[in-house]
């Protein structure tokens, strides 16, 4: 009788592990949208490793979908979504940094001109 709770726990765990995941269609759509968004702001897989990762993982997720390994598909797609979001965020940060640099250059030039004018 003392072994019963252990058995129940193990059974529940095994069930959790073995339960067939539903097809993560919504997640795949989300991931695709995240990738599109990253590319829309100018992310490029060649110089943004996160976007490359996202593309690879999405491809694997799509292959997993075909094989009906839905859990793997979901994991790959979820990671790909965040990889793409990170790529997008990095691009936007880079852009804001570039804008900052432009402003700094202009200010330096203005200061110089002002010093000459006085």
């Amino acid at each position: 009788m003392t072994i019963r709770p252990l058995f129940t726990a193990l059974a529940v765990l095994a069930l959790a592990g073995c339960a067939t995941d539903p097809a993560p269609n919504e997640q795949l759509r989300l991931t695709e949208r995240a990738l599109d968004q990253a590319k829309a702001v100018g992310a490029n897989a060649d110089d943004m490793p996160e976007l490359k990762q996202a593309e690879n993982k999405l491809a694997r997720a799509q292959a997993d979908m075909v094989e009906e390994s839905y859990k793997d598909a979901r994991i790959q797609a979820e990671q790909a979504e965040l990889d793409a979001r990170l790529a997008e965020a990095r691009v936007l940060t880079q852009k804001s940094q570039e804008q900052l640099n432009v402003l700094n250059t202009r200010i330096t030039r203005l200061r110089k001109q002002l010093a000459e004018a006085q």
Partner: protein
Amino acid sequence: MSLKSSVFSSAVLLGSISLAGCVGHHANELAMQQANSDFQAVKEDSNVLRIAPKDVIRAGESLARADRLSSYWGSGQDVEHYAYLSQRYSEIAREHTQKVLNEERAAKLDLERQRLQLALREAKLLSVQQQGKWLEEQIISLATTQTDRGLVMTLGDVLFDTGEADLKNSANRTVLKLVQFLQLNPKRIVRIEGYTDNTGGTEDNLALSLTRAQTVADMLADLGIDEKRIQVAGYGDQYPVDVNATERGRAQNRRVEIVFSDEKGRLGAAR
């Protein structure tokens, strides 16, 4: 007993399945540690908390999930997965924060840029005004006299030969200064008055004086001064400034006088 043994064998079987999932346990621990230290870093950054609180919360939730799963058998893949997601959320939070900080800094710098631009424009304007003042002083010092006719500048002495209306080259500098002065004082107008010595007849001299004045007026117009700002008059040998008995005196009398209006464009009456 048979029931108990079958339970036992089932348990062993399940246990071994779970153990199979346990391969790479150390890798998971490493992933958890990294995710945890990343999360701690963003959690303690007040800027990140202010700017990207949602990403920090998601990083925390994913980490908690990974942590919960790590106490179960057979969840290696999930632990790694949620640790990965947590780390990504932390990174995204940092990126968002950096972007907003950059934008905030850019807004401040843009104000600074506008301020500097304004200051520069003022400085340039000031220098033009100073230049104008300086030129005015120059013009005044250029043989100008404040008379009851207003400010009068004399282009005289050796600028015309007897009987000639052509301005000598030596007058160019003076005329150029005059042009600059008029450009910097757009409201001032001038009357250009021609005079001659008493060589020749009165009628001829009147015509000659007018031609001399017109020569100077044409030159100003050629250099871009609106003709509407220029009046021309010829007085012949009237109003001599020196005796006509000597060559030197006559040279002084062969002259053009430029009468300036005040700053508002009011010109004194003609003679």
